[in-house]
């Protein structure tokens, strides 16, 4: 459990407090334009295969391989409330993704775990990670190498859709399968 600690000084552009900063002086993270595209166009639960999101010409999802509808398109697996089991209707996405990874060992992907906005924020980070890990385990069971898959949990911090009803929550309880460039 010993891991190297990464310490970096991020001085450039760090936010200023002393005196009277202008709004544009505030630190802007060096990752503009990498937001998750809106998935509201997708019918929730509309079974399997190409649940591809994106395609929005203006979507801020540049920087990833496989946007659009090709074999490496971003796919989304949805979960029930407070659950991290992969439902049968998403088995095909898992199988399809596993095939792509085993066929090309240089391919890498990131699993982004998300929750709806109910409950506490940090505990939701844990739930999002648990969902991402459920997909990771399913891929490894189908022969995917551990090194090809990474996970990240955004908890409730990056909803796919805004709203406070079951329809919105259902679209936010998800793992996004993102192929890396």
């Amino acid at each position, binding site marked *: *459990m010993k*891991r190297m*600690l*990464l*310490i*970096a*000084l*991020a*001085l450039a552009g*760090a*936010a*200023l*407090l*002393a005196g*009277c*900063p*202008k*709004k544009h002086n*505030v*630190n*802007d*993270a*060096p*990752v*503009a334009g*990498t*937001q998750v*595209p*809106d998935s509201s166009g997708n019918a929730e639960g509309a079974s399997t295969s190409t649940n591809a999101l994106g395609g929005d010409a203006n979507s*801020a*999802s540049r920087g990833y391989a496989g946007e659009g509808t090709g074999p490496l398109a971003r796919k989304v697996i949805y979960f029930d409330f407070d659950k991290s089991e992969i439902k049968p209707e998403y088995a095909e996405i898992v199988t399809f993704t596993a095939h792509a990874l085993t066929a090309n060992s240089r391919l890498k992907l990131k699993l982004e775990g998300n929750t709806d*906005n*109910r*409950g*506490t*924020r*940090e*505990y939701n*980070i*844990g*739930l999002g*990670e*648990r969902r*991402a*890990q459920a997909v*990771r*385990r399913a891929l490894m069971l189908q022969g995917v190498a*551990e090194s090809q898959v*990474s*996970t*990240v*949990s*955004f*908890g409730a*911090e990056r*909803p*796919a859709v*805004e*709203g*406070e009803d079951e329809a919105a929550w259902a679209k936010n309880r998800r793992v996004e399968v993102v192929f890396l460039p």
Partner: protein
Amino acid sequence: MYKQLPRLALIALTLACPWAHAEFVVEVTKGQTEAIPLAVVPFASAELTAASFDVAQLVSDDLARSGRFKTMDRKDMIEQPHAGANISFDDWRRLNNDYIVVGSMQALGTDRYSITYELYNVLTKQRLLGFQISANRPGLRSAGHQIADAVFEKILGIRGAFSTRIAYVSVLGHLPDKTYQLIVADADGENPRVVMQSREPLMSPSWSPDGSSLAYVSFEQRLPSVYVQTLKSGDRRIVSAHAGVNQAPAWSPDGQKLALVLSTRDGNLDIYTMDLTTQQLTRITDDPGIDTEPQWSKDGQSIYFTSDRAGGPQIYKVGIRPGDKPRRLTFQGSYNARARISPDETQLAFVTQEDGGYRIATLDLRGRGDVQVLTKGHFDVSPSYAPNGAVLIYATRDKGRGVLALVSADGRVQQRLVSSEGELQEPAWAPF
């Protein structure tokens, strides 16, 4: 008479910022019948107030917002005395005031003001406070908070927290174009300053015990990292960027360590402590469930945390010594998470699920461990105690928007702070 008074020179720590604006509108959602009636008489002529700042109104607003006082409306005042010698105590008693604050304000040159104020007990005609404060124009707001602090403490015997600050996260814009801001503001929401801004999520601000720095989680690398930022200089550094999660920083009471949450390769979240000087990590919990949301005990020897090791999330406490076994503290209900201790550690505030909603509750750490649910919302999360323990600030939702709210530690007084913009999240009250 005033020769005896201590003279307090106020240094304006906060410079006026052109873009700072009144962020909050306070709405009292639930009152308190035992609120103490008190009048704060305007300190100065209308001309001087217009030219500078209405200090008496700020004092009145602070005291009213505490929920402990019922302040008299100015239009109901039949006279406006500026010094004790001019108070007709019998008249003020007939108007049902227990206390009266009077004062005067003089301009001393171009940007210097002198405020003299007194607090009287209307029934005994006894003078309880008498002070003089000088301040420049931007310092008048701080001067008002100091007066409110002094009045609050004199009458209630509890240190006032009106001069303190809060940090919170504000999310601006809509999908897919969101901006996340970490903001530090005065406790009344005024003087908001953006200390960090990102296109990716920011979360879990935690104050250093000396109030000089914030630790928080930033996803600016599209992965979570824990940062520590010094507010005065703006310098910030990454203190944790391991593979997997880096979450929920919490400062130890001596300021030397952070408790935080890291994960193993297979995604198991556990609590660790990190020495901020040596970066040495110590694992505190080791359980396959989600262990998160650490918070130190006052003596720095134990950590309160959330764990779902027994099914749903519950609150536990564990000593930081190796081998110490966690002890479960919450047993009512299936969801109890994110504990914060009151400043005297007699109470835990946390989020509980009740009737399908998430609400703020407290657990009495003395005696039988009584639980009291303080709020009635559906999305009440992220409670944080004021440093005097009298009030909690928390995040809730109102008409589809994230707002902040206050509730007294006994649940009797509730207020909503309505902001002009943004989704407000995760308020964290700074120490004194």
